[in-house]
């Protein structure tokens, strides 16, 4: 039932309301310098300021906090239990309440933490975390069990991771509480269920991130022991990487997040599929290469065979013969050509030495000489003839016969003309030549002197 407020305005603007609330909050002395205990959620540093949410240690309640120029000496982590001092302020523009922190003190995890440490030590002493008990996680599981809440983010993360990478896998989700009082029992039931009623190859036990106490079920002794007893390998996947719980220590493998657990489960199968494809391609490629090599070899052999076939050999021989013929005719031609050239040369030289020319010279000379001879001869002849004629005339003039006609005679003895009386002796026959004949006489007297004593 609405209370009719007479002073209430009929209609507020947003700004009117937020301004009003701001005044209300900031005027309230109860909200000045208050101390708050809580758990730090998602701290983030921006410049010199620290932003985080402070969560109630028991109830589901949170408030935003900002620590301007915060004290860096205090290490503030997600999940830290802290005591903060500050003022409540209201931001009229965003319409939000925030605690403006002035002091912060880490109060640690207190009793709970101490108990947990003791339990961890005890279980460690017992050997529950020993690596010798760790079972191998199957690399190619086809059936996976998950023990988690069906309402959490973890189950969705795991399924998304698995099915985006690899389709051929069965996932059995055992839904249980993952926080609160019943959680440890239900988690143990889930592990038991897969170990008995519905065998799987690997079990993922876990949940998404949360506050320290939200993860406590996975720190419970019964869950740790149940994981230890499981015949089936267990992957623990609780919260984020920085969240460590005892389940992580006892499990056969720790996944840093539920998503990581999904990766672990399918990564090998996924890789194997990729590898198989790769192998198929490689084998095909190698085979093709081998075939091509063989083909190439066959082609080469065929070529060589063709090269050495009788037809080819004959053709080659014919070609050789042609070549030799060609060479031969070339050589002969060359020789001929050379001989021809030599001949020409000799001819030329011979022609140069042609006796014809010498002959003509000689002939000319000869002609000259014979002409000169003839002329000389003629000259001589004429001279001689002239001399002869002169002589003849002289001779004719001197002819003794002509003298004889004038009364002279020639006396001969033994065919010798007598010029002296000494040539004859008395008794010798002598012949006297007269102009019209001869007289033979015998010498009977000789006398020297030419006086006509006779």
């Amino acid at each position: 039932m609405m209370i009719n407020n007479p002073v209430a305005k009929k209609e507020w603007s947003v700004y009117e309301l937020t301004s009003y609330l701001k005044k209300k909050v900031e005027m309230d002395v109860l909200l000045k310098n208050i101390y708050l205990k809580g758990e730090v959620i998602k701290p983030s540093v921006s410049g010199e300021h620290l932003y985080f949410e402070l969560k109630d240690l028991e109830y589901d309640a949170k408030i935003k906090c900002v620590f301007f120029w915060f004290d860096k000496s205090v290490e503030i982590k997600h999940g830290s239990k802290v005591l903060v001092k500050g003022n409540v302020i209201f931001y009229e523009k965003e319409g939000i309440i925030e605690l403006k922190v002035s002091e912060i003190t880490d109060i640690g995890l207190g009793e709970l933490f101490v108990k947990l440490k003791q339990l961890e030590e005890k279980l460690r002493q017992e050997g529950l975390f020993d690596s010798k008990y760790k079972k191998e996680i199957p690399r190619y599981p086809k059936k996976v069990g998950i023990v988690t809440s069906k309402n959490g983010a973890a189950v969705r993360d795991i399924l998304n991771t698995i099915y985006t990478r690899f389709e051929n896998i069965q996932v059995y989700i055992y839904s249980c509480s993952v926080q609160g009082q019943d959680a440890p029992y239900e988690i143990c039931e889930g592990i038991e269920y897969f170990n008995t009623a519905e065998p799987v190859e690997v079990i993922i036990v876990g949940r998404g991130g949360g506050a320290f106490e939200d993860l406590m079920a996975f720190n419970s002794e019964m869950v740790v022991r149940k994981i230890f007893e499981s015949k089936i390998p267990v992957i623990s996947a609780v919260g984020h990487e920085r969240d460590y719980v005892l389940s992580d220590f006892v499990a056969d493998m720790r996944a840093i997040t539920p998503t990581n657990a999904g990766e672990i489960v399918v990564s090998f199968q996924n890789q194997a599929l990729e590898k198989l494809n790769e192998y198929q391609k490689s084998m095909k490629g190698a085979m093709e290469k081998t075939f091509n090599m063989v083909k190439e070899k066959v082609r080469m052999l065929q070529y060589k065979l063709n090269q050495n076939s009788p037809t080819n050999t004959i053709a080659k021989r014919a070609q050789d013969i042609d070549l030799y013929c060609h060479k031969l005719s070339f050589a002969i031609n060359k020789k001929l050509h050379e001989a021809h050239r030599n001949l020409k040369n000799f001819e030329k030289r011979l022609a140069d030495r042609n006796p014809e020319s010498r002959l003509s010279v000689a002939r000319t000379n000869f002609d000259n000489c014979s002409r000169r001879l003839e002329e000389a001869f003629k000259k001589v002849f004429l001279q001689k003839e002239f001399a002869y004629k002169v002589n003849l005339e002289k001779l004719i003039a001197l002819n003794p016969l002509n003298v004889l006609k004038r009364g002279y005679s020639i006396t001969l003895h033994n065919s010798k003309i007598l010029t002296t009386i000494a040539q004859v002796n008395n008794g010798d026959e002598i012949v006297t030549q007269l102009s019209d004949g001869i007289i033979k006489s015998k010498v009977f007297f000789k006398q020297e002197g030419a006086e006509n004593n006779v």
Partner: protein
Amino acid sequence: MCELQRDIKFEDAMKRLEEIVRSLEDGNLSLEEAIKLYEEGIRLTKICNDILRSVEKRVVLIEKLNGEYIQDDITNDIYGGLGQKE
């Protein structure tokens, strides 16, 4: 061959496949050897593929209600079967 080979472990098959691929890629094989290896490789590939794909995607949700375990196949409706609330 098939029955005998069917019993081969997936990992062994993969290892053998790797060897086959390496031998084939070395290329120092006769054609007959290569063909033989290739055939073995193809067989192994098929076996491995069969092993990997031997299972169909299946999502089953198990809940304990009133002391009874109820299995619900939510393969085709994963996100209907899984609440979105934290």
